[in-house]
Protein backbone atom coordinates (compact mmCIF):
# COMPACT_ATOMS: atom_id res chain seq x y z
CA UNK A 1 0.00 0.00 0.00
CA UNK A 2 1.26 3.44 -0.88
CA UNK A 3 1.51 6.07 1.86
CA UNK A 4 -1.35 8.53 1.64
CA UNK A 5 -0.42 10.99 4.34
CA UNK A 6 2.93 11.39 5.98
CA UNK A 7 3.29 13.90 8.80
CA UNK A 8 6.80 14.79 9.89
CA UNK A 9 7.75 16.78 13.00
CA UNK A 10 4.62 18.88 12.92
CA UNK A 11 4.75 21.67 15.51
CA UNK A 12 1.93 24.18 16.02
CA UNK A 13 1.47 27.01 18.49
CA UNK A 14 -1.19 29.58 19.28
CA UNK A 15 0.01 33.06 20.07
CA UNK A 16 -2.41 34.44 22.63
CA UNK A 17 -2.50 37.34 25.06
CA UNK A 18 -1.12 35.12 27.76
CA UNK A 19 1.72 33.77 25.67
CA UNK A 20 2.50 30.94 23.31
CA UNK A 21 0.26 27.90 23.64
CA UNK A 22 2.33 24.98 22.41
CA UNK A 23 -0.58 22.89 21.25
CA UNK A 24 1.22 20.39 19.03
CA UNK A 25 4.85 19.45 19.48
CA UNK A 26 6.89 17.45 17.05
CA UNK A 27 4.31 15.00 15.77
CA UNK A 28 5.18 12.38 13.16
CA UNK A 29 3.05 9.56 11.80
CA UNK A 30 1.92 8.14 8.52
CA UNK A 31 -1.29 6.79 7.07
CA UNK A 32 -1.90 4.40 4.21
CA UNK A 33 -4.60 4.52 1.59
CA UNK A 34 -7.88 3.13 2.88
CA UNK A 35 -6.55 2.71 6.39
CA UNK A 36 -8.51 3.65 9.49
CA UNK A 37 -6.34 5.33 12.08
CA UNK A 38 -7.56 6.16 15.57
CA UNK A 39 -6.30 9.14 17.53
CA UNK A 40 -7.02 9.08 21.22
CA UNK A 41 -6.21 11.41 24.07
CA UNK A 42 -7.71 13.61 26.73
CA UNK A 43 -9.32 16.92 25.94
CA UNK A 44 -6.69 19.49 25.04
CA UNK A 45 -4.07 16.97 23.99
CA UNK A 46 -3.79 18.51 20.54
CA UNK A 47 -5.79 16.03 18.47
CA UNK A 48 -7.90 18.56 16.64
CA UNK A 49 -5.12 21.09 16.25
CA UNK A 50 -2.93 18.47 14.54
CA UNK A 51 -5.43 17.99 11.73
CA UNK A 52 -6.56 21.58 11.54
CA UNK A 53 -2.89 22.45 11.00
CA UNK A 54 -2.63 19.98 8.16
CA UNK A 55 -5.69 21.45 6.47
CA UNK A 56 -4.73 25.05 7.11
CA UNK A 57 -7.88 25.63 9.17
CA UNK A 58 -6.27 27.00 12.30
CA UNK A 59 -7.72 30.04 14.03
CA UNK A 60 -5.93 33.29 13.22
CA UNK A 61 -3.78 33.09 16.32
CA UNK A 62 -2.47 29.63 15.38
CA UNK A 63 0.69 29.05 13.37
CA UNK A 64 2.47 25.94 12.17
CA UNK A 65 6.01 26.45 13.36
CA UNK A 66 7.62 23.55 11.63
CA UNK A 67 7.28 20.18 10.01
CA UNK A 68 5.70 18.73 6.93
CA UNK A 69 2.49 16.98 6.00
CA UNK A 70 2.93 15.09 2.75
CA UNK A 71 -0.36 14.20 1.15
CA UNK A 72 0.22 11.98 -1.89
CA UNK A 73 3.78 13.25 -1.74
CA UNK A 74 2.81 16.92 -1.72
CA UNK A 75 3.51 19.09 1.32
CA UNK A 76 0.30 20.68 2.56
CA UNK A 77 2.01 22.89 5.12
CA UNK A 78 3.93 24.79 2.49
CA UNK A 79 1.12 24.70 -0.06
CA UNK A 80 -0.48 27.92 -1.27
CA UNK A 81 -3.93 28.88 -0.12
CA UNK A 82 -5.68 28.13 -3.39
CA UNK A 83 -3.91 24.78 -3.78
CA UNK A 84 -5.02 23.87 -0.30
CA UNK A 85 -8.57 24.92 -1.07
CA UNK A 86 -8.66 22.52 -4.00
CA UNK A 87 -7.73 19.67 -1.68
CA UNK A 88 -10.05 20.62 1.18
CA UNK A 89 -13.48 19.12 0.83
CA UNK A 90 -12.42 17.32 -2.32
CA UNK A 91 -9.50 15.04 -1.38
CA UNK A 92 -9.56 15.52 2.36
CA UNK A 93 -12.75 16.28 4.23
CA UNK A 94 -13.50 16.75 7.88
CA UNK A 95 -16.42 15.88 10.14
CA UNK A 96 -16.55 18.12 13.18
CA UNK A 97 -17.34 17.42 16.77
CA UNK A 98 -20.46 19.49 17.32
CA UNK A 99 -23.17 18.99 14.71
CA UNK A 100 -25.29 21.63 16.43
CA UNK A 101 -22.97 24.47 15.60
CA UNK A 102 -21.19 23.11 12.55
CA UNK A 103 -24.08 23.66 10.16
CA UNK A 104 -25.05 27.12 9.01
CA UNK A 105 -28.43 27.79 10.64
CA UNK A 106 -29.65 29.99 7.79
CA UNK A 107 -28.91 27.70 4.85
CA UNK A 108 -30.89 24.73 3.61
CA UNK A 109 -29.53 21.33 4.54
CA UNK A 110 -29.42 20.26 0.91
CA UNK A 111 -27.57 23.36 -0.20
CA UNK A 112 -24.97 22.77 2.46
CA UNK A 113 -24.45 19.16 1.40
CA UNK A 114 -24.29 20.12 -2.26
CA UNK A 115 -21.88 22.99 -1.71
CA UNK A 116 -18.70 20.91 -1.97
CA UNK A 117 -19.82 19.60 -5.35
CA UNK A 118 -20.47 23.14 -6.52
CA UNK A 119 -17.00 24.15 -5.47
CA UNK A 120 -15.08 21.19 -6.78
CA UNK A 121 -16.97 19.94 -9.83
CA UNK A 122 -18.52 21.39 -12.95
CA UNK A 123 -21.72 19.37 -12.68
CA UNK A 124 -25.04 20.96 -13.54
CA UNK A 125 -27.48 22.08 -10.88
CA UNK A 126 -29.88 19.19 -11.31
CA UNK A 127 -27.09 16.66 -11.19
CA UNK A 128 -25.63 18.19 -8.06
CA UNK A 129 -29.02 18.12 -6.43
CA UNK A 130 -29.55 14.51 -7.42
CA UNK A 131 -26.18 13.51 -5.98
CA UNK A 132 -26.78 15.41 -2.77
CA UNK A 133 -30.13 13.70 -2.27
CA UNK A 134 -28.51 10.35 -2.98
CA UNK A 135 -25.87 11.10 -0.39
CA UNK A 136 -28.52 12.06 2.15
CA UNK A 137 -30.19 8.74 1.47
CA UNK A 138 -26.93 6.93 1.99
CA UNK A 139 -26.58 8.40 5.47
CA UNK A 140 -30.16 7.24 6.10
CA UNK A 141 -31.98 10.55 6.19
CA UNK A 142 -35.62 9.56 5.74
CA UNK A 143 -37.44 11.29 2.88
CA UNK A 144 -34.18 12.78 1.71
CA UNK A 145 -35.68 14.64 -1.24
CA UNK A 146 -38.08 16.45 1.05
CA UNK A 147 -35.57 17.02 3.80
CA UNK A 148 -33.26 18.62 1.28
CA UNK A 149 -35.26 21.81 1.82
CA UNK A 150 -35.14 21.76 5.60
CA UNK A 151 -33.13 24.02 7.87
CA UNK A 152 -30.68 22.60 10.40
CA UNK A 153 -32.82 23.61 13.38
CA UNK A 154 -35.51 21.24 12.14
CA UNK A 155 -33.10 18.31 12.58
CA UNK A 156 -32.05 16.47 15.71
CA UNK A 157 -28.41 16.21 16.73
CA UNK A 158 -28.00 12.73 15.31
CA UNK A 159 -29.61 13.74 12.02
CA UNK A 160 -27.36 16.74 11.76
CA UNK A 161 -24.32 14.58 12.29
CA UNK A 162 -25.58 12.36 9.46
CA UNK A 163 -25.79 15.48 7.33
CA UNK A 164 -22.22 16.36 8.30
CA UNK A 165 -21.13 12.88 7.27
CA UNK A 166 -22.97 13.19 3.95
CA UNK A 167 -21.28 16.52 3.43
CA UNK A 168 -17.85 15.09 4.04
CA UNK A 169 -18.31 12.09 1.75
CA UNK A 170 -20.01 13.73 -1.19
CA UNK A 171 -16.83 14.39 -3.17
CA UNK A 172 -15.44 10.89 -2.56
CA UNK A 173 -12.38 12.12 -0.65
CA UNK A 174 -9.40 9.85 -0.21
CA UNK A 175 -9.12 10.92 3.43
CA UNK A 176 -11.88 11.69 5.90
CA UNK A 177 -10.98 13.18 9.24
CA UNK A 178 -13.70 12.46 11.75
CA UNK A 179 -13.01 14.69 14.74
CA UNK A 180 -14.95 13.20 17.64
CA UNK A 181 -18.06 12.73 15.49
CA UNK A 182 -20.04 11.23 18.34
CA UNK A 183 -18.84 13.03 21.44
CA UNK A 184 -21.65 15.58 21.44
CA UNK A 185 -24.39 12.98 21.02
CA UNK A 186 -26.46 10.78 23.34
CA UNK A 187 -25.17 7.27 23.86
CA UNK A 188 -27.87 5.61 21.74
CA UNK A 189 -27.43 8.11 18.92
CA UNK A 190 -23.68 7.62 19.25
CA UNK A 191 -24.11 3.92 18.54
CA UNK A 192 -26.25 4.61 15.49
CA UNK A 193 -23.70 7.02 14.05
CA UNK A 194 -20.84 4.63 14.71
CA UNK A 195 -22.80 1.86 13.04
CA UNK A 196 -23.41 4.09 10.05
CA UNK A 197 -19.74 4.99 9.84
CA UNK A 198 -18.73 1.32 9.96
CA UNK A 199 -21.19 0.50 7.20
CA UNK A 200 -20.03 3.38 5.04
CA UNK A 201 -16.43 2.39 5.61
CA UNK A 202 -17.10 -1.01 4.13
CA UNK A 203 -18.13 0.31 0.72
CA UNK A 204 -15.82 3.31 0.60
CA UNK A 205 -12.20 3.47 -0.36
CA UNK A 206 -11.44 6.49 1.81
CA UNK A 207 -8.87 6.40 4.54
CA UNK A 208 -10.29 7.59 7.84
CA UNK A 209 -8.69 9.31 10.78
CA UNK A 210 -11.00 8.75 13.70
CA UNK A 211 -10.40 11.10 16.59
CA UNK A 212 -11.88 10.36 19.98
CA UNK A 213 -11.07 10.50 23.64
CA UNK A 214 -12.80 7.18 24.12
CA UNK A 215 -10.66 4.12 23.57
CA UNK A 216 -13.62 1.77 23.39
CA UNK A 217 -15.08 3.74 20.48
CA UNK A 218 -11.71 3.63 18.73
CA UNK A 219 -11.48 -0.08 19.32
CA UNK A 220 -14.62 -0.69 17.30
CA UNK A 221 -13.45 1.33 14.32
CA UNK A 222 -9.72 1.24 13.80
CA UNK A 223 -6.80 -0.95 12.98
CA UNK A 224 -4.12 1.29 14.36
CA UNK A 225 -4.13 3.82 17.21
CA UNK A 226 -2.08 6.85 18.13
CA UNK A 227 -2.24 8.00 21.73
CA UNK A 228 -1.67 11.71 22.23
CA UNK A 229 -0.90 13.64 25.37
CA UNK A 230 0.27 17.20 25.94
CA UNK A 231 0.59 17.88 22.22
CA UNK A 232 2.78 14.83 21.62
CA UNK A 233 2.39 11.28 20.43
CA UNK A 234 2.90 9.02 23.44
CA UNK A 235 2.32 5.66 21.89
CA UNK A 236 1.44 4.17 18.54
CA UNK A 237 0.33 0.58 18.12
CA UNK A 238 -2.05 -1.77 16.40
CA UNK A 239 -5.31 -2.00 18.23
CA UNK A 240 -4.53 -5.49 19.58
CA UNK A 241 -1.11 -4.51 20.83
CA UNK A 242 -2.49 -1.47 22.52
CA UNK A 243 -5.05 -3.41 24.48
CA UNK A 244 -2.88 -6.43 25.23
CA UNK A 245 0.53 -4.93 25.85
CA UNK A 246 0.17 -1.20 26.38
CA UNK A 247 3.65 0.29 26.41
CA UNK A 248 3.08 3.65 28.01
CA UNK A 249 1.95 4.59 31.52
CA UNK A 250 -0.56 7.09 30.10
CA UNK A 251 -2.15 4.47 27.86
CA UNK A 252 -2.39 2.14 30.82
CA UNK A 253 -4.16 4.87 32.71
CA UNK A 254 -6.57 5.35 29.80
CA UNK A 255 -7.28 1.64 29.64
CA UNK A 256 -8.06 1.53 33.32
CA UNK A 257 -10.60 4.30 32.84
CA UNK A 258 -12.66 2.38 30.23
CA UNK A 259 -15.78 0.79 31.60
CA UNK A 260 -15.70 -2.90 30.94
CA UNK A 261 -19.17 -4.33 30.90
CA UNK A 262 -18.64 -7.98 31.61
CA UNK A 263 -16.46 -7.53 34.67
CA UNK A 264 -17.69 -7.75 38.20
CA UNK A 265 -18.82 -4.54 39.78
CA UNK A 266 -15.82 -4.26 42.10
CA UNK A 267 -13.46 -3.18 39.34
CA UNK A 268 -14.23 0.49 39.55
CA UNK A 269 -13.26 2.96 36.87
CA UNK A 270 -10.05 4.70 37.70
CA UNK A 271 -9.67 8.13 36.19
CA UNK A 272 -6.07 9.27 35.94
CA UNK A 273 -5.40 11.58 38.88
CA UNK A 274 -4.19 15.09 38.16
CA UNK A 275 -4.88 17.30 35.18
CA UNK A 276 -3.29 17.77 31.75
CA UNK A 277 -0.29 20.08 31.53
CA UNK A 278 -0.62 23.79 30.91
CA UNK A 279 0.35 24.16 27.28
CA UNK A 280 1.53 27.70 27.91
CA UNK A 281 4.42 26.26 29.90
CA UNK A 282 4.59 22.53 29.26
CA UNK A 283 7.04 20.47 31.32
CA UNK A 284 10.53 20.39 29.85
CA UNK A 285 10.62 16.61 29.84
CA UNK A 286 7.89 14.04 29.43
CA UNK A 287 4.54 15.89 29.42
CA UNK A 288 3.02 13.15 31.57
CA UNK A 289 5.64 13.40 34.27
CA UNK A 290 3.54 15.12 36.96
CA UNK A 291 0.86 12.46 36.77
CA UNK A 292 3.01 9.40 36.13
CA UNK A 293 3.45 6.95 38.99
CA UNK A 294 6.53 5.51 37.29
CA UNK A 295 8.27 8.82 36.71
CA UNK A 296 12.04 9.02 37.09
CA UNK A 297 14.32 12.04 37.45
CA UNK A 298 15.23 11.92 33.80
CA UNK A 299 11.58 12.25 32.77
CA UNK A 300 11.58 15.76 34.14
CA UNK A 301 14.74 16.78 32.34
CA UNK A 302 14.21 15.72 28.78
CA UNK A 303 11.56 14.51 26.39
CA UNK A 304 11.68 10.76 25.90
CA UNK A 305 12.53 9.58 22.37
CA UNK A 306 10.36 7.18 20.35
CA UNK A 307 11.32 3.71 21.49
CA UNK A 308 10.48 0.73 19.34
CA UNK A 309 8.49 -1.95 21.08
CA UNK A 310 7.72 -4.01 18.01
CA UNK A 311 7.58 -3.39 14.27
CA UNK A 312 4.18 -1.74 14.56
CA UNK A 313 4.50 -0.45 18.09
CA UNK A 314 6.44 2.52 19.47
CA UNK A 315 6.30 4.34 22.77
CA UNK A 316 7.60 7.65 24.01
CA UNK A 317 8.52 6.60 27.51
CA UNK A 318 11.92 6.61 29.12
CA UNK A 319 11.28 3.21 30.64
CA UNK A 320 11.78 1.67 27.22
CA UNK A 321 15.21 3.25 26.84
CA UNK A 322 18.01 0.73 26.59
CA UNK A 323 19.71 2.46 29.56
CA UNK A 324 16.67 2.14 31.77
CA UNK A 325 17.22 -0.25 34.70
CA UNK A 326 15.09 -3.38 34.74
CA UNK A 327 14.27 -3.41 38.41
CA UNK A 328 11.09 -1.56 39.23
CA UNK A 329 10.47 -1.02 35.51
CA UNK A 330 6.99 -2.27 34.71
CA UNK A 331 7.66 -2.75 31.02
CA UNK A 332 11.00 -4.53 31.28
CA UNK A 333 9.85 -6.64 34.21
CA UNK A 334 6.80 -7.64 32.18
CA UNK A 335 9.11 -8.74 29.39
CA UNK A 336 11.22 -10.72 31.86
CA UNK A 337 8.21 -12.35 33.37
CA UNK A 338 6.93 -13.38 30.00
CA UNK A 339 10.24 -14.80 28.82
Amino acid at each position, binding site marked *: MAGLLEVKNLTTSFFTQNGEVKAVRDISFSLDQGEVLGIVGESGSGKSVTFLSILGLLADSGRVKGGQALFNGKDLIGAGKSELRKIRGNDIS*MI*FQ*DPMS*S*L*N*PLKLIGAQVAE*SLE*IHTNLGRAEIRRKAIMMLERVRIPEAAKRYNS*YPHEFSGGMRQRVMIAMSLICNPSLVIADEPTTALDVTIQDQILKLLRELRRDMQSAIVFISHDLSVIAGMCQRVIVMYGGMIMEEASIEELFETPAHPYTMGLLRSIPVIDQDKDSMLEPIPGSPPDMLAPPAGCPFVVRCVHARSICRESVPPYNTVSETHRSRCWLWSSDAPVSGNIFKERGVARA
Partner: protein
Amino acid sequence: MIWYIAKRIASMFATLFVVVLLTFLLMHSIPGGPFTAERRLPESVERALVKKYKLDAPLHVQFFDYVKGLLVFDLGPSFKYEGRSVNEFITEGFPLSSRLGLMSIVFTLFLALPLGSISAIKSGKWQDILIMFLATMGITIPSFVIATGLMYVFSFRLGWFPVFGVSSVKGYILPMIALSGYSLAFITRLMRSSLLEVMGQDYIRTARAKGLSETGIVLKHALRNALIPVVTILGPTLASLLTGSFVIEKIFALPGMGIHFVTSIANRDYTAIMGITIFYATILVAMVFIVDIFYVMIDPRIKLQ
Protein backbone atom coordinates in the same frame (compact mmCIF):
# COMPACT_ATOMS: atom_id res chain seq x y z
CA MET B 1 -46.83 33.28 10.89
CA ILE B 2 -50.35 34.74 10.78
CA TRP B 3 -50.68 34.02 14.46
CA TYR B 4 -47.41 35.74 15.11
CA ILE B 5 -48.47 38.83 13.17
CA ALA B 6 -51.81 38.93 14.92
CA LYS B 7 -50.11 38.67 18.28
CA ARG B 8 -47.67 41.40 17.42
CA ILE B 9 -50.44 43.69 16.23
CA ALA B 10 -52.35 43.11 19.42
CA SER B 11 -49.35 43.88 21.55
CA MET B 12 -48.66 46.92 19.40
CA PHE B 13 -52.08 48.32 20.19
CA ALA B 14 -51.69 47.45 23.85
CA THR B 15 -48.41 49.35 23.95
CA LEU B 16 -49.94 52.34 22.23
CA PHE B 17 -52.85 52.31 24.61
CA VAL B 18 -50.48 52.40 27.56
CA VAL B 19 -48.57 55.24 25.95
CA VAL B 20 -51.73 57.24 25.35
CA LEU B 21 -52.94 56.61 28.87
CA LEU B 22 -49.60 57.60 30.35
CA THR B 23 -49.35 60.76 28.29
CA PHE B 24 -52.92 61.68 29.08
CA LEU B 25 -52.41 61.21 32.80
CA LEU B 26 -49.10 63.05 32.76
CA MET B 27 -50.70 65.99 30.99
CA HIS B 28 -53.52 65.92 33.48
CA SER B 29 -51.17 66.17 36.37
CA ILE B 30 -49.69 69.47 35.22
CA PRO B 31 -50.75 72.38 37.37
CA GLY B 32 -52.24 74.87 34.95
CA GLY B 33 -52.35 72.20 32.33
CA PRO B 34 -54.89 71.75 29.60
CA PHE B 35 -57.32 69.71 31.62
CA THR B 36 -57.34 71.55 34.89
CA ALA B 37 -59.79 74.23 35.85
CA GLU B 38 -57.57 77.22 36.42
CA ARG B 39 -56.66 78.24 32.88
CA ARG B 40 -56.32 81.65 31.39
CA LEU B 41 -56.92 81.31 27.72
CA PRO B 42 -58.37 83.34 24.91
CA GLU B 43 -62.11 82.99 24.91
CA SER B 44 -62.30 81.22 21.57
CA VAL B 45 -59.58 78.70 22.40
CA GLU B 46 -61.23 78.06 25.70
CA ARG B 47 -64.50 77.39 24.00
CA ALA B 48 -62.89 75.10 21.45
CA LEU B 49 -61.15 73.20 24.22
CA VAL B 50 -64.17 72.79 26.41
CA LYS B 51 -66.17 71.65 23.46
CA LYS B 52 -63.50 69.31 22.18
CA TYR B 53 -62.54 67.68 25.43
CA LYS B 54 -65.84 67.95 27.25
CA LEU B 55 -63.85 69.49 30.06
CA ASP B 56 -66.83 69.53 32.32
CA ALA B 57 -67.20 65.78 31.97
CA PRO B 58 -65.49 63.29 34.32
CA LEU B 59 -61.93 62.13 33.63
CA HIS B 60 -62.66 58.76 32.08
CA VAL B 61 -65.18 60.30 29.69
CA GLN B 62 -62.55 62.78 28.60
CA PHE B 63 -60.05 60.04 28.10
CA PHE B 64 -62.31 57.89 26.00
CA ASP B 65 -63.27 60.90 24.02
CA TYR B 66 -59.64 61.61 23.32
CA VAL B 67 -59.04 57.99 22.33
CA LYS B 68 -62.07 58.11 20.06
CA GLY B 69 -60.53 61.12 18.39
CA LEU B 70 -57.27 59.27 18.00
CA LEU B 71 -58.96 56.38 16.27
CA VAL B 72 -60.02 58.72 13.48
CA PHE B 73 -56.62 60.45 13.53
CA ASP B 74 -57.93 63.56 15.22
CA LEU B 75 -55.45 64.96 17.71
CA GLY B 76 -57.56 67.93 18.70
CA PRO B 77 -57.00 71.70 18.61
CA SER B 78 -53.84 73.49 19.62
CA PHE B 79 -53.75 74.74 23.17
CA LYS B 80 -51.93 77.91 22.21
CA TYR B 81 -52.87 78.95 18.72
CA GLU B 82 -56.39 79.89 17.90
CA GLY B 83 -57.98 77.91 15.13
CA ARG B 84 -55.04 75.58 14.65
CA SER B 85 -55.21 71.86 15.16
CA VAL B 86 -52.44 69.51 16.18
CA ASN B 87 -53.13 67.58 12.99
CA GLU B 88 -52.06 70.63 11.06
CA PHE B 89 -48.73 70.77 12.84
CA ILE B 90 -48.11 67.19 11.86
CA THR B 91 -49.13 67.48 8.25
CA GLU B 92 -46.93 70.54 7.97
CA GLY B 93 -43.89 69.13 9.66
CA PHE B 94 -43.90 65.43 9.08
CA PRO B 95 -43.16 65.28 5.34
CA LEU B 96 -39.87 67.07 5.79
CA SER B 97 -38.91 65.11 8.90
CA SER B 98 -39.72 61.78 7.35
CA ARG B 99 -37.80 62.68 4.20
CA LEU B 100 -34.80 63.55 6.35
CA GLY B 101 -35.22 60.41 8.42
CA LEU B 102 -35.47 58.16 5.37
CA MET B 103 -32.47 59.77 3.73
CA SER B 104 -30.56 59.24 6.94
CA ILE B 105 -31.43 55.59 7.29
CA VAL B 106 -30.48 54.91 3.70
CA PHE B 107 -27.26 56.85 4.12
CA THR B 108 -26.55 55.02 7.37
CA LEU B 109 -27.09 51.56 5.93
CA PHE B 110 -25.18 52.27 2.74
CA LEU B 111 -22.16 53.31 4.72
CA ALA B 112 -22.41 51.31 7.92
CA LEU B 113 -22.80 47.82 6.48
CA PRO B 114 -19.76 47.96 4.15
CA LEU B 115 -17.65 49.83 6.70
CA GLY B 116 -18.49 47.38 9.45
CA SER B 117 -17.77 44.43 7.18
CA ILE B 118 -14.43 45.85 6.06
CA SER B 119 -13.54 46.52 9.63
CA ALA B 120 -14.32 42.93 10.62
CA ILE B 121 -12.55 41.36 7.68
CA LYS B 122 -9.48 43.53 8.19
CA SER B 123 -9.71 43.11 11.95
CA GLY B 124 -6.62 44.51 13.62
CA LYS B 125 -5.29 46.12 10.45
CA TRP B 126 -5.15 49.86 9.84
CA GLN B 127 -8.51 49.91 8.05
CA ASP B 128 -10.16 48.44 11.12
CA ILE B 129 -8.38 50.81 13.49
CA LEU B 130 -9.34 53.84 11.41
CA ILE B 131 -12.97 52.82 11.01
CA MET B 132 -13.32 51.97 14.68
CA PHE B 133 -11.74 55.27 15.66
CA LEU B 134 -14.26 57.14 13.54
CA ALA B 135 -17.08 55.01 14.91
CA THR B 136 -16.06 55.79 18.47
CA MET B 137 -16.15 59.47 17.61
CA GLY B 138 -19.58 59.05 16.05
CA ILE B 139 -20.91 57.32 19.13
CA THR B 140 -19.51 59.72 21.68
CA ILE B 141 -19.95 63.09 20.02
CA PRO B 142 -23.52 64.30 20.56
CA SER B 143 -25.47 65.00 17.40
CA PHE B 144 -25.87 68.68 18.12
CA VAL B 145 -22.13 69.05 18.37
CA ILE B 146 -21.67 67.22 15.07
CA ALA B 147 -24.36 69.39 13.53
CA THR B 148 -22.92 72.67 14.73
CA GLY B 149 -19.41 71.56 13.80
CA LEU B 150 -20.49 70.62 10.28
CA MET B 151 -22.40 73.84 9.93
CA TYR B 152 -19.48 75.94 11.11
CA VAL B 153 -16.97 74.28 8.81
CA PHE B 154 -18.99 73.60 5.67
CA SER B 155 -21.50 76.40 5.72
CA PHE B 156 -19.76 79.31 7.41
CA ARG B 157 -16.14 78.66 6.65
CA LEU B 158 -16.21 76.87 3.31
CA GLY B 159 -19.61 78.00 2.15
CA TRP B 160 -20.30 74.72 0.39
CA PHE B 161 -23.76 74.26 1.79
CA PRO B 162 -26.58 76.61 2.66
CA VAL B 163 -26.72 77.55 6.33
CA PHE B 164 -30.45 77.18 6.75
CA GLY B 165 -33.38 75.68 4.96
CA VAL B 166 -33.92 73.02 2.36
CA SER B 167 -34.71 75.01 -0.72
CA SER B 168 -32.34 72.76 -2.66
CA VAL B 169 -31.30 69.15 -2.18
CA LYS B 170 -27.97 70.45 -0.93
CA GLY B 171 -29.74 71.74 2.13
CA TYR B 172 -30.52 68.20 3.24
CA ILE B 173 -26.96 66.95 3.17
CA LEU B 174 -25.51 68.39 6.36
CA PRO B 175 -28.63 67.66 8.43
CA MET B 176 -28.64 64.13 7.08
CA ILE B 177 -25.00 63.53 8.01
CA ALA B 178 -25.44 65.06 11.44
CA LEU B 179 -28.57 63.06 12.08
CA SER B 180 -26.98 59.81 10.91
CA GLY B 181 -23.77 60.24 12.90
CA TYR B 182 -24.72 58.16 15.90
CA SER B 183 -26.63 55.41 14.09
CA LEU B 184 -23.93 55.19 11.46
CA ALA B 185 -21.29 54.65 14.10
CA PHE B 186 -23.45 52.31 16.11
CA ILE B 187 -24.44 50.09 13.20
CA THR B 188 -20.87 50.03 11.91
CA ARG B 189 -19.73 48.74 15.27
CA LEU B 190 -22.57 46.30 15.51
CA MET B 191 -21.95 44.98 12.00
CA ARG B 192 -18.28 44.55 12.80
CA SER B 193 -18.77 42.66 16.02
CA SER B 194 -21.56 40.62 14.53
CA LEU B 195 -19.53 39.60 11.50
CA LEU B 196 -16.51 38.86 13.67
CA GLU B 197 -18.65 36.68 15.87
CA VAL B 198 -20.09 34.84 12.89
CA MET B 199 -16.65 34.36 11.36
CA GLY B 200 -15.60 32.59 14.54
CA GLN B 201 -18.50 30.14 14.39
CA ASP B 202 -18.04 26.45 13.77
CA TYR B 203 -20.08 26.50 10.58
CA ILE B 204 -17.64 28.94 9.03
CA ARG B 205 -14.90 26.42 9.75
CA THR B 206 -17.10 23.81 8.08
CA ALA B 207 -17.37 26.02 5.02
CA ARG B 208 -13.60 26.49 4.98
CA ALA B 209 -13.14 22.75 5.25
CA LYS B 210 -15.21 22.39 2.10
CA GLY B 211 -12.66 24.44 0.23
CA LEU B 212 -14.72 27.60 -0.13
CA SER B 213 -12.66 30.75 -0.67
CA GLU B 214 -12.60 33.49 1.96
CA THR B 215 -14.67 35.81 -0.22
CA GLY B 216 -17.14 33.02 -0.85
CA ILE B 217 -17.37 32.37 2.87
CA VAL B 218 -18.09 35.99 3.70
CA LEU B 219 -20.63 36.37 0.92
CA LYS B 220 -22.39 33.02 1.10
CA HIS B 221 -22.15 32.08 4.76
CA ALA B 222 -21.33 35.04 6.96
CA LEU B 223 -23.02 38.21 5.74
CA ARG B 224 -26.61 37.10 5.99
CA ASN B 225 -26.08 35.65 9.45
CA ALA B 226 -24.25 38.76 10.58
CA LEU B 227 -27.11 40.97 9.39
CA ILE B 228 -29.64 39.49 11.79
CA PRO B 229 -28.60 41.48 14.86
CA VAL B 230 -28.42 44.56 12.66
CA VAL B 231 -31.99 44.04 11.52
CA THR B 232 -33.19 43.72 15.08
CA ILE B 233 -31.97 47.19 15.94
CA LEU B 234 -33.28 48.87 12.80
CA GLY B 235 -36.56 49.70 14.53
CA PRO B 236 -34.93 51.49 17.44
CA THR B 237 -32.53 53.11 14.98
CA LEU B 238 -35.38 54.60 13.01
CA ALA B 239 -36.71 55.74 16.33
CA SER B 240 -33.54 57.52 17.23
CA LEU B 241 -33.35 59.08 13.78
CA LEU B 242 -36.83 60.49 14.20
CA THR B 243 -36.45 61.75 17.74
CA GLY B 244 -32.89 62.91 17.18
CA SER B 245 -34.22 65.23 14.57
CA PHE B 246 -35.55 67.74 17.14
CA VAL B 247 -32.12 69.08 17.65
CA ILE B 248 -30.97 68.85 14.07
CA GLU B 249 -34.06 70.63 12.82
CA LYS B 250 -33.53 73.30 15.40
CA ILE B 251 -29.91 73.89 14.44
CA PHE B 252 -30.53 73.94 10.71
CA ALA B 253 -33.84 75.75 11.15
CA LEU B 254 -35.74 73.15 9.16
CA PRO B 255 -39.51 73.46 9.46
CA GLY B 256 -40.11 69.80 10.43
CA MET B 257 -41.95 67.99 13.19
CA GLY B 258 -39.04 68.43 15.54
CA ILE B 259 -39.29 72.19 15.35
CA HIS B 260 -43.01 72.03 16.04
CA PHE B 261 -42.34 69.79 18.99
CA VAL B 262 -39.65 72.02 20.43
CA THR B 263 -41.75 75.13 19.93
CA SER B 264 -44.71 73.41 21.51
CA ILE B 265 -42.53 72.61 24.48
CA ALA B 266 -41.33 76.16 24.74
CA ASN B 267 -44.88 77.48 24.39
CA ARG B 268 -46.26 74.89 26.78
CA ASP B 269 -48.73 73.97 24.05
CA TYR B 270 -49.83 70.88 25.96
CA THR B 271 -52.25 69.40 23.49
CA ALA B 272 -49.63 69.69 20.78
CA ILE B 273 -46.96 68.07 22.95
CA MET B 274 -49.34 65.27 23.75
CA GLY B 275 -50.48 64.80 20.19
CA ILE B 276 -47.00 64.83 18.72
CA THR B 277 -45.71 62.44 21.38
CA ILE B 278 -48.46 60.00 20.57
CA PHE B 279 -47.81 60.42 16.90
CA TYR B 280 -44.12 59.69 17.40
CA ALA B 281 -44.93 56.69 19.53
CA THR B 282 -47.28 55.31 16.90
CA ILE B 283 -44.72 55.65 14.16
CA LEU B 284 -42.05 54.03 16.23
CA VAL B 285 -44.18 51.14 17.33
CA ALA B 286 -45.19 50.61 13.73
CA MET B 287 -41.56 50.69 12.60
CA VAL B 288 -40.54 48.19 15.21
CA PHE B 289 -43.42 45.99 14.09
CA ILE B 290 -42.42 46.11 10.43
CA VAL B 291 -38.82 45.39 11.28
CA ASP B 292 -39.87 42.47 13.45
CA ILE B 293 -41.85 40.94 10.62
CA PHE B 294 -38.92 41.41 8.31
CA TYR B 295 -36.70 39.77 10.90
CA VAL B 296 -38.94 36.72 11.04
CA MET B 297 -38.74 36.50 7.29
CA ILE B 298 -34.95 36.41 7.13
CA ASP B 299 -34.34 34.09 10.07
CA PRO B 300 -35.89 30.67 9.44
CA ARG B 301 -35.30 29.57 13.02
CA ILE B 302 -38.04 31.82 14.34
CA LYS B 303 -40.96 30.45 12.33
CA LEU B 304 -41.42 27.36 14.43
CA GLN B 305 -41.89 29.14 17.73
